[in-house]
């Protein structure tokens, strides 16, 4: 097949033509990263992903992880891929050079992640979680903690995790009961149970540093009394040598629907009273630390979800181009007509076009958010930075929930495109579909994301970030109106953006009224239409870039589309944008109308009314 995981042409389009990532080289922070360098990075990431990581995906799913003598064994195929990934120094590609990273722009790491995670998400969670944990150490750690852990973690020699969840503390992390008892020497004795811990143990590394949320004995209840600790699997002596086993016990592994290659662990900390940790950051400020890391973590999970979507679409497209079944609809009366490949059938085109619209739009959405992160990192202009940070705050819950849920739907459509074969294990879609689902659940369920959007982000700073978002959309609309052939689409997007503003006002007002519960039954729907509108904006923006290039190539002559290099690509891009405006946005307007009704049925109904108990 021609392309695996992602359409490289579209990756390049979004990077260089839409987001102009090469312009970042004008900043001091990113001066080294010109277009050629970025291209080479993507080439190598794709190369490693396709040649080494992708082949581990199916075995990883089939074999899963095992718990033997208290130790987790990952599928053997993961070892070579992990070694190569670490040797290539991919783990810390965005980190500053001083801490052992390469300092790459976030947007470039996103393109690389798309390939890596699309190749094997369960595998990539090992280095991915290590990265997140190391980042916590980098930001909140003492000099000593950094000296002991950082280089080991960023190089992949040691692993990292994130221990938040407990049986009674899932969405409500503030309810956790794991306790830390001060030992008087700067260390704490940790006691408690953590569940659902990804990569909680594994044999890819010699040691693991677990960031653990726990309450210092006697600290206040709720989120205000939570602290963050660094708890190594094997204690690390002051000179960096490995000490004793730190009483971090893997009780069992969860049996689950997907991501079988990643161990999901139930962990007992300090069952023998011998688990020690050191504070990461200040006492009782653990949740604050978490919040500061949340944007990046949620962006990461959004990319995970998206990677399944793009991989599933590429497989489905390839399959549809090869599967011969049924005659052309135009020949349906002619029994002698030859059978054709199914990508000729209008109903299959429906699925392919919808998937393409979703995948391309999400790629632009995600990379745009990446550029916002890069502006915050690299700009000298405080106002510009503040605006970008505001956009990040609003976009992150939308991105996390929308991209993970829509990607799952893309997997569903991809399976449908395969017909019966898609449902079998001989083809890759059923695994992608199973694996994808978790991305809508962990790192804050998508319901929780929508509450974050409505409850915190919409009204943040007097609503300025949200208005900035609407303002950015309106700029693109204004630009598009001046481009021949995009008038209709510009009008469609303009209408949606206008209506979204109204819905946002209504949601904000209702959420502050006595109908607050009703408002929150629509928080997910609100997030959904925000997502649709961002996607419409992205498609319009893409078309603004592509349409003039298409016209320059063909001079408006459709016959030239097939003969000029790139013309078919740009033409497909413009048509996809038009499809979004004409086939998807009207449904979005309908969804907005539904929100506007503010039906209180879901709130008013008695519990007994749902079904007998």
């Amino acid at each position, binding site marked *: *097949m*021609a392309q695996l995981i992602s359409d490289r*042409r579209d990756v390049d389009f979004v990077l260089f033509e839409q987001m102009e990532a090469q312009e970042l080289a004008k900043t001091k922070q990113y001066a*080294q990263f010109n277009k*050629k360098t970025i291209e*080479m990075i993507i*080439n190598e990431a794709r190369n490693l992903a396709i040649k*080494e990581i992708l082949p581990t995906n199916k075995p990883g799913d089939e074999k899963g992880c095992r718990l033997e003598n208290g130790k987790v064994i990952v599928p053997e195929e993961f070892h070579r891929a992990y070694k190569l990934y670490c040797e290539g*120094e991919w783990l810390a590609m965005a980190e500053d050079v001083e801490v052992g990273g390469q300092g790459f722009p976030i947007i470039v790491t996103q393109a690389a992640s798309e390939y890596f995670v699309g190749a094997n998400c369960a595998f990539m969670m090992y280095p991915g979680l290590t990265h997140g944990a190391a980042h916590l150490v980098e930001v909140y750690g003492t000099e000593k903690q950094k000296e002991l852990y950082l280089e080991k973690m960023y190089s992949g020699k040691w692993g990292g995790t994130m221990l938040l969840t407990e049986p009674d503390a899932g969405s409500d992390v503030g309810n956790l009961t794991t306790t830390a008892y001060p030992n008087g020497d700067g260390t704490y004795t940790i006691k408690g149970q953590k569940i659902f811990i990804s990569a909680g143990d594994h044999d890819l590394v010699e040691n693991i540093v677990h960031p653990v949320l726990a309450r210092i004995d006697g600290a206040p209840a709720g989120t205000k009394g939570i602290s963050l600790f660094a708890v190594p699997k094997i204690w690390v002596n002051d000179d960096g040598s490995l000490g004793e086993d730190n009483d971090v016990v893997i009780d069992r592994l969860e049996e689950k629907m997907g991501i079988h290659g990643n161990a999901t662990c139930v962990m007992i900390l300090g069952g023998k009273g011998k688990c020690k940790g050191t504070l990461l950051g200040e006492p009782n400020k653990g949740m604050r630390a978490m919040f500061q890391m949340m944007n990046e973590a949620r962006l990461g999970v959004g990319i995970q979800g998206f990677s399944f979507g793009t991989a599933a679409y590429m497989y489905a497209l390839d399959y549809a181009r090869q599967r011969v079944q049924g005659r052309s609809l135009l020949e349906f009366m002619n029994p002698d007509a030859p059978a054709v490949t199914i990508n000729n059938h209008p109903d299959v085109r429906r699925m392919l076009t919808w998937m393409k619209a979703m995948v391309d739009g999400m790629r632009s959405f995600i990379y745009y958010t990446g550029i916002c992160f890069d502006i915050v990192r690299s700009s000298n202009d405080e106002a510009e930075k503040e605006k970008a940070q505001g956009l990040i705050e609003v976009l992150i819950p939308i991105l996390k929930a929308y991209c993970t849920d829509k990607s799952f739907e893309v997997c569903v459509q991809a399976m449908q495109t395969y017909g019966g074969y898609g449902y079998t294990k001989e083809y890759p879609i059923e695994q992608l579909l199973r694996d994808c689902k978790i991305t809508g659940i962990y790192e804050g369920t998508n319901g929780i994301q929508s509450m974050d959007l409505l409850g915190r982000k919409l009204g943040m700073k007097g609503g300025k970030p949200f208005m900035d978002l609407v303002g950015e959309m309106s700029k693109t609309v204004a630009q598009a109106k001046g481009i021949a052939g995009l008038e209709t689409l510009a009008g469609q997007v303009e209408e949606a953006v206008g209506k979204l503003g109204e819905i946002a006002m209504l949601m904000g007002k209702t959420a502050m009224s006595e109908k607050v519960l009703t408002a929150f039954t629509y928080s997910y729907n609100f997030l959904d239409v925000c997502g649709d509108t961002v996607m419409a904006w992205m498609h319009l923006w893409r078309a603004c870039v592509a349409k003039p290039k298409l016209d320059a190539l063909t001079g408006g002559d459709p016959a030239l589309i097939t003969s000029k290099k790139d013309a078919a690509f740009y033409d497909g891009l413009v048509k996809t944008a038009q499809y979004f405006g004409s086939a998807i946005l009207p449904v979005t307007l309908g969804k907005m109308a539904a929100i506007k009704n503010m039906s209180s049925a879901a709130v008013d109904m008695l519990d007994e009314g749902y079904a007998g108990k």
Partner: protein
Amino acid sequence: MEIVVLLKQVADTEARVAPTADGLGVSTGDAKKIINPYDEFAVEEALRIKQQLGGSVTILSAGDDKAAEAIRTALAMGADKGVLVNDPAVMASDGLGRAKILAAALKTMAFDLVLAGLRAVDDDSHLVGPAVAELLGIPHVGGVLEVTVENGSVFCLRAADSGQARVKAMLPALLSAQKGLNTPRYASMIGIMQAKKKPLQTLSLADIGISPDSVGPNAAKTITKAFMPLPQRAAGRMIEGGTAQEKAANLAKALKNEAKVI
């Protein structure tokens, strides 16, 4: 130890290719370009020899502007410098023409050992390596599977007609790499960042003393008549029969009487 690696950029082996409309060329569409996989073995071997014996590794390619990317990738793997002979005549040359160009470029450079790939996966002519050696008047060992350099000689294990052969050649020599020689490394992130700063020199035909009409299409010894797509594979046939024995008997009959292979 001065090592030069001859490297060609080719279309990604995943690419779907088709004959061009006139049938005289091959269209690779928007395919990405990669280092010819056999040349990657050569790069890897050169880097290993350098690691052991010191010296430097130079990547030499004859190609177009895009070929610079392939050279940069080899630099990112760890090679020290690159030389690109970039001239319109290059792309229009056949294998022998390219060999002339590469040999002429090598004459302007210092080298103890030249490594090439056994074949390029696009044209598959298998001749550039040996032809360059011939033009330079140095020994050539083809299809090497193991290489050891010692005291001014190179000892190779190479594939032979019905087995393998150990061959010794005096340096300078040219070796062409066979699959199995090694597992090429991936470029690391640091390597990629460093590659940007490594020297990449571009030469014209004039720079290496070659007149454009001694290479290019007019001087070509091979003439392409037409490229054709692969024939479609015909549908398979199920052998009839009620029992396994019956099916086997029918299969044997078909192989004897119809396929006439037994």
